[in-house]
């Protein structure tokens, strides 16, 4: 009797396994003529839907939402199911692409296959300031930059009663309980370090690559602020950042420019300032995953990159979201297309470019670095800030 039931049991479990693997391969087959599966932040899209983006590029796209936090990508690719899920992903340049490339999560690119590569701004040429952010340690190009910015502070002009040009406001008791920062160690620690360094409150050599004791100082400052109740919350993800500002839950917030742009569209009097101490500057790059290459998505990827390096994209991301385009020819494109960019939009673009230039010109700016030498110290101290 035991025999029969055991056989039953084995049969059942084999059946389960078979049906599981069957359905998996069945569904994989159904998508054989695959669209390009992308994992990126919502603000990489400048049209209403991702379908339109795909049409414009001539590549069918399947989109999955990703948060702005760099840790998430590492987790997803080294432990989770990233290679299976996505062909192309975006993340911040500056260390991240090296780690991904070292661990063979992404593959080197053949930029001669990207027609618009010639448009790329000179900052990425070898030897220039941003050159490293798209190359791995061997010097191979592994990333395609599509947006960049100098991150600043958004404030509610009506409620705070004027313009703000210093990070002091974020840490000022005047706005106690009405301030927010991002729940991500990279931007938050760098921004705070820039402020502490330039206002002479702490000696820091390089805000993007601090020593153990410097990290400790910055984090203790934040912990102290947190304990005093300075911050309402640490925002997580784009939508959360917008909601906080739009609903006037917070009045000052260190955040991405599009958060300020969208919150202002919703009716609150939100402005994005230039901070005299400096900002964290960064870019975001597209990368082709190993899985994507294995699935034969290389050509589709290059087609999509053509779109992301075209002034068509640059003009729209600048006008609609406020990111800095990474290609030349944007102004010419805007002038040539008055139907899409009327006088009001053009004025908006001009003003934004002027503000960007002002922000970029501040001496204290610091380029983001996702893999500082004392990475573990960053992680340990950041967990203490989170827990405080």
């Amino acid at each position: 009797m035991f025999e029969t039931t055991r056989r039953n049991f084995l049969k059942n479990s084999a059946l389960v396994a078979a049906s599981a693997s069957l359905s998996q391969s069945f569904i994989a087959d159904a998508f054989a003529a695959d669209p390009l599966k992308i994992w990126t932040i919502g603000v990489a899209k400048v049209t209403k839907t991702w379908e339109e983006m795909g049409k414009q590029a001539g590549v069918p796209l399947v989109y999955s939402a990703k948060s702005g936090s760099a840790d998430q990508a590492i987790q997803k690719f080294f432990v989770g199911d990233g290679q299976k899920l996505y062909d192309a992903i975006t993340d911040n340049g500056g260390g991240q692409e090296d780690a991904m490339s070292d661990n063979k999560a992404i593959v080197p690119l053949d930029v001669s296959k990207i027609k618009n590569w010639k448009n790329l701004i000179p900052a990425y040429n070898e030897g220039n300031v941003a050159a490293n952010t798209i190359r791995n340690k061997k010097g191979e190009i592994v990333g395609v930059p599509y947006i960049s910015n100098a991150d600043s502070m958004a404030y509610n002009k009506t409620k705070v009663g004027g313009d703000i040009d210093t990070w002091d406001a974020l840490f000022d008791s005047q706005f106690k309980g009405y301030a927010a920062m991002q729940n991500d160690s990279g931007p938050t620690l760098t921004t705070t370090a820039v402020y502490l360094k330039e206002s002479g409150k702490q000696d820091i050599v390089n805000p993007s690559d601090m020593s153990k004791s410097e990290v400790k100082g910055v984090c203790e400052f934040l912990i102290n602020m947190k304990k005093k109740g300075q911050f309402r919350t640490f925002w997580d993800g784009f939508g959360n950042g917008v909601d906080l500002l739009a609903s006037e839950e917070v009045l000052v917030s260190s955040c991405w420019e599009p958060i300020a742009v969208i919150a202002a569209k919703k009716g609150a009097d939100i402005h994005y300032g230039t901070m005299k101490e400096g900002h964290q500057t960064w870019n975001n790059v597209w990368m082709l995953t190993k899985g994507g290459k294995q699935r034969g998505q290389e050509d589709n990827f290059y087609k999509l990159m053509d779109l992301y390096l075209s002034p068509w994209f640059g003009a729209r991301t600048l006008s609609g979201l406020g990111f800095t385009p990474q290609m030349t020819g944007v102004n010419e494109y805007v002038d040539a297309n008055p139907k899409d960019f009327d006088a009001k939009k053009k004025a908006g673009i001009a003003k934004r470019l002027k503000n960007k230039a002002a922000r970029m010109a501040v001496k204290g700016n610091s380029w983001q670095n996702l893999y500082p030498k004392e990475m573990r110290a960053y992680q340990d101290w950041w967990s203490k800030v989170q827990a405080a």
Partner: protein
Amino acid sequence: MSLRDDFQPKWKLFLKWGWLSFAVFILMAPVFYTMYISFNELGFGAKYYVFTFQWYENVFSDKQLINALGWTMLLALITLPIVIPFGLLSAKLYKQSTKKVWIVFVLLSPLFVPADILGSALLVFFKNLNKFFTFISEYTGIYMFETWFDLGIMTAVIGLIVYTLPYVFVVVMITMARYRPEQTEAARDLGASAWRAFWEVEFPQIRAGVFSACAFVVILTFNEYTRTSLLKGGFDTFTSVLISQMLNTGMSEESYAMASIVSLVAIVIVSVILIVTAVRTEQLEKLTRVVKEPN
């Protein structure tokens, strides 16, 4: 619903019913608010309210979402035929067993383990199991198990079974409580096999409970996020799409529409169960009355 207490003043009873309905309302308030926002063109946090169906249109034309819906259905469809028999078997085992404590412990304690903890423990378990099987296949040349515990449908389904089995067990136990085992004995005495006795005598009487259990499993599968998102392989489920939209992207008031749709489905299913059981008990009551007082 009629009340049976005659000693209390009416207004007190109303007050108590009011309190009860108020509690249900408060528990549901976030859901109603989500529905309200889902019709605002400007989304949450905006200063004005402009009515629109736009977000719903977006949801239904979103291919990724439809895809994710398909995957979720598949998960539910694989989980159901495993977990329902599991629930029936364990209820039977519980009734016969003398070591009830252990069965209760194993079957009900998943209810008490927070999702994040169970999810991460299972994730690490499967990862290690995988390494172990890879090791085995390298040394023995038997590659049969090598990919069994790769994150995928199999692992997601296991997570779902561990999660839903306690609910199924309880629902089945509740319905079985009304069944009198003498009926099975009678059937067996008349020469029916155990299976026939179960299928033709007992099952029809607990069918309603089994169906409710099915409904629960489907709803729970649709709502599960933490465990499934940790354990699923290369696919997205309905909630994983929904949550990533809620947490990460800004201009997606679609997520409110999506949330409203799932909530509505759950509300409809539970209401249907409510109404059906209400009607059935009415009928049963009538029947017993007729039997008790023939004319």
